[in-house]
């Protein structure tokens, strides 16, 4: 029993490690660094100036925080989607599904590295904020900030798992993925305050991951305490859990369907 548990934990983490390596090891360190360090910078500059121009205010920290999170979230979503959906391209699905490995450990493990990767992305984004836009952390509770970022990247990776499964089923990953990316851009409050959206759009914002995470992170950086944001963070966490479970459920449905219809290795 215990042995089996440790073995599943191994599948979980080795799957995490190897799928991440399979996805990113081809990048040379320089390319990897550029994509991690400089890409968020350009995105941030774009939105800080556009935002300042459009709203007339000069509230850089609003855009810096929002875009750090959204950048990390989108790379997490793409990453997880690709590491699940990529199995179809590499032709490894028959070998994965033919193995006795615990499907839950195999599937959810795919998200782990991307959560860490996403967190790193947020830190880099915030780092640029300090360097270039004078982002002020003097009133920030670091532990609360860490928790908020962790939970936010977790919930967006959950979305990635769900998308990854969709990509196994539909094959139109990029289309679906881009739609999700742009809806996060619009609905999450990263660039447009949720309160300024029309009512029907606000209700979409409330259902998405990231929205609450962005709000919590802003509150914490501006001096709020963990207690202030805890209710929202709990919901964000719950959204992540639900997305993960839904993704896993779809994963199982895919496995069963593929075996019935014989579509396991069609790509």
């Amino acid at each position, binding site marked *: 029993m215990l042995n089996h548990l440790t073995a599943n934990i191994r599948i979980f983490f080795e799957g995490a490690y190897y799928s991440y390596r399979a996805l990113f090891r081809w990048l040379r360190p320089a390319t990897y660094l550029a994509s991690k360090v400089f890409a968020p910078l350009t995105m941030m500059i774009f939105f800080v100036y556009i935002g300042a121009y459009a709203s007339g205010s000069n509230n850089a920290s609003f855009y810096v925080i929002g875009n750090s999170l959204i950048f990390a979230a989108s790379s997490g979503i793409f990453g997880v989607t690709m590491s699940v959906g990529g199995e179809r391209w590499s032709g490894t699905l028959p070998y994965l599904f033919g193995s006795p490995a615990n499907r839950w450990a195999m599937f959810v493990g795919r998200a782990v590295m991307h959560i860490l990767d996403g967190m790193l992305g947020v830190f880099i984004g915030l780092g640029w904020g300090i360097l270039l836009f004078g982002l002020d952390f003097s009133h920030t509770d670091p532990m609360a900030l860490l928790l908020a970022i962790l939970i936010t990247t977790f919930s967006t990776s959950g979305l990635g798992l769900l998308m990854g499964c969709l990509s196994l089923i539909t094959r139109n990953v990029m289309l679906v993925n881009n739609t999700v990316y742009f809806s996060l851009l619009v609905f999450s409050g990263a660039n447009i305050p949720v309160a300024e959206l029309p009512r029907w759009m606000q209700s979409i914002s409330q259902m998405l991951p990231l929205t609450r995470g962005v709000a919590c992170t802003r509150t914490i950086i501006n001096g709020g305490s963990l207690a202030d944001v805890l209710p929202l963070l709990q919901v964000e966490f719950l959204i992540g859990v639900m997305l993960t479970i839904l993704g896993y459920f779809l994963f199982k449905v895919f496995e069963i369907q593929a075996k019935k219809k014989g579509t396991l*290795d069609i790509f």
Partner: protein
Amino acid sequence: MDAITVNHLNRVFKSTDGIIKRKVKEVVAVEDVSFEIRQGELFGLLGPNGAGKTTSVKMLTTLLIPTGGTATIMGLDVVKDAAKVRPRIGFIFGGERGLYWRLSGLDNLRYFASLYYVDEKVAKKRIPELLEMVGLKGREREKVEGYSRGMRQRLHIARALLHDPEVLFLDEPTMGLDPVGARELRTTVKNMQSANKTILLTTHYMFEADALCQRIAVINKGKIVALDTPEKLKENVQDLTVVEIELYGISQDRIARIKALDFVVDVSVEDRDQRQVLHVHTPKGPEAIPVLVENLNGLRLGRIITREPTLEDAYVRLVGGTEN
């Protein structure tokens, strides 16, 4: 005890085409297939393209649900006890896909070892042994994308053996290998069998089945058309002689005319560069030659020989091919 039993196995694929008017097309890939494989036996499933070999293997390896019939591995049902079957079997589908190309060979093996719950200590010992066995020692830290096709195929074999399975399914393991590589692989397969594993191997090549397998099932259009030892299969054609006639540009109705001759049992045509070679199976022996030549008049003929039938002829006769 039988390691594998297959009872009236069936598989129908449905595919839809047309956007507006959805037509459902049905392909019967495997039809009423039954056989048993003894423990420790090396069994060949031989058939032309599209015969249903891969489909059969997929059903036996729990990757495809049969639309009819049942099958067991070591007494376990492949559908109902799929989870119990999986740790006891290893399988490879010919070709290069199914590996993580951006990982090293070693990382591929390590990851699959964990998926098969191979104890880490055991894996540490077994992986180098397997690398040695498949001849990848020294190359294991290179990425798979830099491997040759044969190396990838051999990595697949090592992967399939990680958990020391009792039953092995090898779907066209020599596909795409050069003659030397294919021969090495056949030696590896032979060695695996002497390690007392039950092996089901599929192939297009009669000689491969002949060289390796104790029994051969010939499958054509989803059905088993013969199942016997290579020797017995040869006996089927032993009363016959094969007349080989080299010629240039023969038409279909000429072939039909030859086929219709009363002393001709079977005819197959093989393309060789510009020429074709007509293989005529007949009990009459060399005496058939004059009549055959008469029926081919007007055509440019090359060498004509008579020879003993081979297993290849038995196979061609079974699958009724006029292709090569």
